[in-house]
């Protein structure tokens, strides 16, 4: 009754109505930004008086935006690799290991995800002041790996727990060394979890803004930091152009993720 879509009666209209409204609420702001990025109005009038690519031209002509983009990309790719590797090792320990305090360790590894970022940001900022790591590439990578690690560990642990360890044992009995069995059999078998860890780690760094605001120097600013500091001054349509590119990237990542899921054997 309450769970049969076709037998909800009048209430079904209410449910469909709210679903439509929420769908529009979630989607329209994003579409609006995409539309405004092609609009000619400096003051973001909607509908735009005319269509133009000038904000994109301005964006690509500005070395500051380009260097922020490059900085963010470099940091996010490095974080993706480091977090996935460290996360992979930690996940093996957490799923296969037997040692006292394992559950405490698991909780510790996931804490950065639930702690308010601003606390970590302020704490790391003070700590990095002493180590002279603020405003450095290494500082950004370290901070973002801390934030990305829980996502990588959750994704890989899920995959490892679903993977039957007997398959790895079979490879060892077939003559493969334990390491060879992990590399040739286990890693390919949990590759979806690894890709998930990579995508989430990348996004965790790419979208991270709070820590970056504290750590950024005039010479090294990630894209979110530049957007944030620009937004503090005005709502430039150039940001609409940047945002549209970011939405495009999101869609690419979503398609990638759904392709990976489809490619998964039943």
């Amino acid at each position: 009754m309450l769970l049969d879509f076709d037998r909800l009666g009048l209430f079904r209209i209410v449910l469909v109505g709210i679903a439509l409204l929420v769908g529009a609420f979630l989607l329209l702001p994003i579409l609006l930004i995409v539309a405004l990025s092609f609009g000619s109005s400096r003051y973001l009038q909607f509908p735009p008086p005319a269509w133009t690519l000038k904000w994109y031209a301005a964006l690509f002509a500005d070395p500051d935006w380009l260097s922020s983009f490059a900085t963010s990309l470099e940091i996010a790719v490095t974080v993706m690799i480091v977090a996935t590797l460290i996360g992979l090792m930690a996940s093996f320990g957490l799923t296969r290991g037997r040692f006292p305090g394992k559950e405490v360790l698991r909780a510790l590894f996931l804490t950065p995800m639930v702690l308010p970022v601003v606390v970590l940001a302020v704490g790391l900022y003070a700590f990095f002041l002493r180590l002279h790591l603020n405003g450095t590439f290494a500082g950004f990578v370290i901070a973002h790996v801390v934030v990305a690690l829980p996502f990588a560990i959750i994704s890989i642990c899920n995959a490892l727990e679903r993977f039957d360890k007997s398959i790895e044992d079979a490879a060892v009995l077939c003559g493969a060394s334990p390491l060879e069995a992990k590399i040739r059999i286990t890693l390919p078998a949990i590759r979806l979890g690894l890709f998930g860890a990579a995508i989430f780690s990348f996004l965790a760094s790419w979208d991270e803004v709070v820590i970056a605001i504290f750590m950024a120097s005039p010479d090294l600013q990630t894209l979110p930091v530049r957007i944030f500091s620009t937004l503090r001054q005005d709502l430039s349509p150039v940001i609409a152009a940047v945002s549209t590119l970011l939405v495009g990237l999101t869609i690419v990542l979503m398609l990638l993720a759904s392709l990976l899921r489809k490619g998964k054997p039943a």
Partner: protein
Amino acid sequence: MTRPFLSIQAIEKTYGAVVAVKDVSLDIAKGEFMTFLGPSGSGKSTTLYVVAGFLEPTRGDVLLEGKSVLSVPSNKRNIGMVFQRYTLFPHLSVADNVAFPLKVRRRPKAEIDAKVSAMLKLVRLDRMAERMPAQMSGGQQQRVALARALAYDPPILLMDEPLSALDKKLREELQVEIKRIHAETGVTILYVTHDQEEALRLSDRVALFNAGRIEQLGTGRDLYETPATRFVAGFIGNSNFLSGKLDRRSSTACAIVLPDGVRFDAAPSAAIEPQRRDVEIMIRPDHFRLHNGERDDGLPKMTGTVTDTTYLGEYTLIAVRTAWGVPLTVRLPPGAALPDIARGQTIDLTCDRANLRVF
């Protein structure tokens, strides 16, 4: 004296205070099909995993052709194994699965290709070489696992309940296949199962495990016809147990008195301690003989009431309750069934001395 091919010597495995395996010893000849049979937790799989090298024994040794293998890691033992769960490598095709152990051993490509196709022919899956494991049934997957385990010609093949996830029909089909492959390859097989029928069907010899020890080691016939202990008698085949008192005992004979006063003579059993008086006699359902009271062969008889008869074609089952209330099952071959046995009828039961066992 010939040296045994595989020798398991006084293996013991403990986890803290828990003893999983205790003093297990046995020798296996080259080409033999040996089955470890027993209930869950009896130590049979643990023993197998010690041979595989996944577990280190707390005590004891495992010798292959006279040399200890305990210090050899699993991947260097050159042992084949088929697991209970399907363990095909999910991202590799059937052919690549079978080729894996050969690739790990860096064999030349031509040799690998030839061996893979020979192995797939052996398990009758040569048309499925390019399939992925997810596209195959459980029975097919276990055949591939068997081909993979035999691809590198291991001297020993370990099988850990390989058919327990399959349904009855498929299981019987694969039992025939395994028997054929054993005959064709001559490989020595160590097989673990909790299914007594499977054990008897496949093996040259069976080691029956209970509570971490081997209760009895012998051919299926040994285990069924001359069970060494009460546990073996109860585990292999169907049995009736009757409690009684040991009355007289000599080196060649003993007598047991049942609650209704009937005395049965039997061969004495080594399993009974000298002071013990409370014993059980075991009679297989098909070893009973029924009487309607007209004939007398001079054997002791106990009286019972028929509570049910079930005609099953190949045999007839008759449920009988003894005068003191113990339910018994009697199995009669077709034709032997007395036509006039009916529920509620009183009958006499007897059994040849040779078919009685005392525990």
